[in-house]
């Protein structure tokens, strides 16, 4: 019975390969002194310890190699791992650096305008970063549907969208934009990693503090024209500007 035998031989596929694009922080190095890098990284970590803990990272050596500065890859990787980073790739590296990285099980990634150095090595993993300039790291949005209560703290690596209220005494931070579709009564800090293009959108502004890339305004500075109204907040010429929506 042909149908039966066909049936018994049939196994549904247990796996399939798919191509996906991820957003991963890229560590662009401008100095080859591992001690200095470690020191400055620690300062960054102190700003947002939870965010960096076990964070994947791609090492970008393009700037270093432009200046003909070599760096000890294994020393660098060990230091990163000791700070709880998980290096998952390297780009802009020389052939020798790549070889060293591969020994440490760190695959190569094609960097912007950097195909040549990679040519000799077969790409090991799916391309993890879209080939963008290192500046702002784009992450997918974090969506929250529950109210953020007083004393709670939310950190989003990319955009942060909140469909409920943010209570007084709560703190929401995002590297990208912040959208709040309930009342915003707590503190909202967008572009916390320095993205001056970040904006805050909210349907009811009663915030204790609003900040974009470190430039902030406190509740007292809010004029009656914008208070309790739907607004967007952005940086214009280093000044925090609040516009009614």
């Amino acid at each position: 019975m042909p149908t039966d035998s066909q049936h018994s031989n049939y196994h549904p596929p247990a796996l399939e390969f798919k191509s996906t694009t991820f957003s991963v922080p890229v560590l662009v190095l401008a100095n080859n002194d591992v001690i200095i890098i470690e020191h400055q990284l620690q300062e960054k970590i102190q700003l947002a310890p939870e965010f960096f803990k076990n964070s994947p990272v791609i090492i970008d050596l393009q700037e270093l190699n432009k200046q003909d500065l070599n760096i000890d890859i294994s020393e660098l990787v060990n230091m990163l791992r000791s700070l709880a980073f998980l290096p998952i790739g390297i780009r802009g590296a020389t052939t020798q650096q790549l070889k060293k990285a591969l020994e440490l099980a760190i695959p190569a990634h094609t960097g912007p305008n950097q195909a040549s150095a990679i040519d000799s090595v077969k790409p090991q993993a799916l391309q993890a970063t879209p080939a963008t300039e290192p500046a702002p790291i784009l992450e997918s949005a974090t969506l929250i549907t529950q109210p953020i209560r007083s004393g709670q703290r939310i950190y989003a690596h990319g955009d942060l969208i909140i469909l409920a209220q943010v209570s007084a005494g709560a703190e929401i931070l995002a590297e990208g934009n912040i959208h709040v579709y309930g009342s915003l009564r707590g503190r909202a800090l967008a572009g916390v990693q320095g993205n001056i293009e970040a904006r805050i959108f909210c349907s009811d502004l009663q915030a204790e503090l609003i900040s974009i890339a470190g430039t902030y305004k406190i509740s007292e500075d809010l004029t009656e024209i914008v208070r309790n109204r739907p607004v967007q907040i952005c940086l214009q010429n280093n000044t925090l500007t609040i516009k009614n929506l």
Partner: protein
Amino acid sequence: MARIIVVTSGKGGVGKTTTSAAIAMGLAKRGHKTAVIDFDVGLRNLDLIMGCERRVVYDFVNVINGEATLNQALIRDKNCNQLYILPASQTRDKDALSQEGVGRILDELKKDFKYIVCDSPAGIERGAFLAMYYADDAFIVTNPEVSSVRDSDRMLGILSSKSRRAEENEEPIKEYLLLTRYSPDRVKLGEMLSVDDVQEILSLHLLGVIPESKSVLNASNSGTPVILDEKSDAGQAYADVIARYLGEDRPHRFIDEKKGLFGKLFGGK
């Protein structure tokens, strides 16, 4: 299935113990076997409100430390044989409570009781944390004033992030708002937040509004939960709270100011 109810607020003096006593008695009066536990180790009060202070032999900490069995420590209420009280220790502090010990006692109580009411101490430290950690339902007791509302908001944040249900990714704790010491006349004068003001900040399911009432103080002094005073407005309000919690539909009373006869006849809302 037994349900653990925590009565909590963050702020002190808002009526947690009064509420714990009233709802525990209310549930027991409805025929549900109920235990009420005083988590305020070191500042024991529940036994006074329940009028059983002269019958305390062993307490919560004794049971946790294995110095007494649960049955030895539970005090049966003199008004209702479905209600048992587990008093706090007055001579110890909150560090005497261990998370594992509390969990063990609650598990044991769950076998025998329908409802377990945990009377939380004020604050957000160990005692309050342990009172809410194992809860299934939370009664947030709030007074209509800004600091109480903010503390309640903070407590809600802790319920939704630090409780066992949150940690184990289970269905979150069901949160209910209980507005106590409410005085419609003072709301009208602008001296007190209204139900709507509080709801705008907390956006919670309103289980009941308990009016400011002399009967609460009288009940506390005499050691009988106010819900037993069926003639008093506060007692009736707590009875409504129990009815709503058990799924009955009751209109909210005591939100509007007292009207004269004329107002009652023609006033509408």
